[in-house]
């Protein structure tokens, strides 16, 4: 299964992995595959607050710059420091070690607006809309 069942997905190819009130955010396998070799991750600072749909990070591959949209509203409580030195983690393990940051959710009910893995897999297979 390319897309883990315990993750929630956005149309714009981000995911949220929920642990209690914390959501770990990253980009999906489809997104990393479209981007190619990722060479730079601009993660947000701890303490910053984002609303769902706002740009919370920017990911750069050799060829392209891509904004990442926040799946759920919340405050950044942790940043994956490993991605600074090893941005390739987003290619190698996008749904695991390649997470970008974690937010404390302000409105967990927003998770209901996201896609489950089955729906997302179909969305990605259909070309994923416009990234």
């Amino acid at each position: 299964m390319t897309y883990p069942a315990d993750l929630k997905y956005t149309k714009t190819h981000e995911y949220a992995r929920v642990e209690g009130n914390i959501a770990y955010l990253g980009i999906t396998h489809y997104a990393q595959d479209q981007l190619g070799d990722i060479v730079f991750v601009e993660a947000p600072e701890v303490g910053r607050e984002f609303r769902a749909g706002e740009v919370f990070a920017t990911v750069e591959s050799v060829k392209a710059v891509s904004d990442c949209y926040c799946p759920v509203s919340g405050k950044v409580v942790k940043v994956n420091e490993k991605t600074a030195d090893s941005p390739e983690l987003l290619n190698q393990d996008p749904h695991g070690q390649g997470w970008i940051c974690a937010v404390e959710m302000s409105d967990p009910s927003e998770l209901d607006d996201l896609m489950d893995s089955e729906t997302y897999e179909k969305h990605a297979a259909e070309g994923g809309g416009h990234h």
Partner: protein
Amino acid sequence: MAEELKKTPLYETHLKYGGRIIDFEGWALPVHFTSIKEEHHACRNAAALWDVSDMGELLIEGPEALDLLQMLLTNDISKGYPGRVIYSPMCYPNGGVVDDMMVICLKNGGYLLVINAGNIEKDYEWVSGAARYFRDVTVKNISKETAEVALQGPNSERILQRLTNYPLSEMKYYHGAEDVYVDGIKCLITRTGYTGEDGFEVYCDAADGPALFDSIMEAGQDDGLVPAGLGCRDTLRFEASMPLYGQELDANHGPLGAGLGRFVAFGKGTFFVGAKALMEEREKGLKAKLVGLEMLERGIARTGYKVFDESGSKELGYITTGSYVPTLDKNLAMAYVPVDFSQLGTKVTVDVRGKKVLAQVVKMPFYRREAKKK
């Protein structure tokens, strides 16, 4: 996609090898087969093969072929002889660049101009327009009838030698040979490239392109040869600090500011288009100069980003190309800045999406391969 993309004779070949096809200035070409980084490293360490049939070819023939080129090109084409390849910019009267090209000197006294994909129509108009002032010269656009592949990397000679009797070790850099048979296919071969590595560019009839590509891929299977796409074609040429038309060169940016002065032969003894403007520019001093930048803080400068002085208050110019480069593992850029800011070590900042990121002027070429041991 609104318009049908142009396809090279090797389109089906790209699909067969698993290329990811994108729209490259109207051409359907692969951006990569596996990954840009992998293909980049393969070229530097082993070998890589590209379809570069999107490039254009103009055939210039007749007794006045040399006169026409001496008038249109900034370099001295009279130094050519059959088998010689000469790089030259082609300028407008104001010194801006129409295109930059390779001139392959042919056995029959003619010349093959290898021009950029995006400039084929414009160049053909420009060159054939000028040819009307001559009595005995013909200009033919043979771009569609011609396939071109580029085999680049340290193992290139060994791989290509398996397919031909021509003694490739005797072919010097920027030289070539016509009517060479590569696995039975009649080709024109030049020892040239756009990667900073040793290698060859091989031309044949469009119909033979796919077979040529397959033959070379098979001959290189034990030498680390990979099919390669547009992505690393750009990172390799950028890392080797080679200019790309439309980025480092254009109608407003001439050869002198781009550091291509050695390809402008002011003393060649004939008038050439752009000579007066370029001479004036040389005497008065350049307004802007192309420099190499290394990012000192986290961030990647991309094409079009603005460059400021160290304090971030004075705008200096803009990035022509910027990227992460795999061999040097750095974030580098090229930019036009005023001459006062072009000294090595000068600190500048680049506006990376609203944030001023510190960078420093560094030497070009960024990457130079080690001299061949013989």
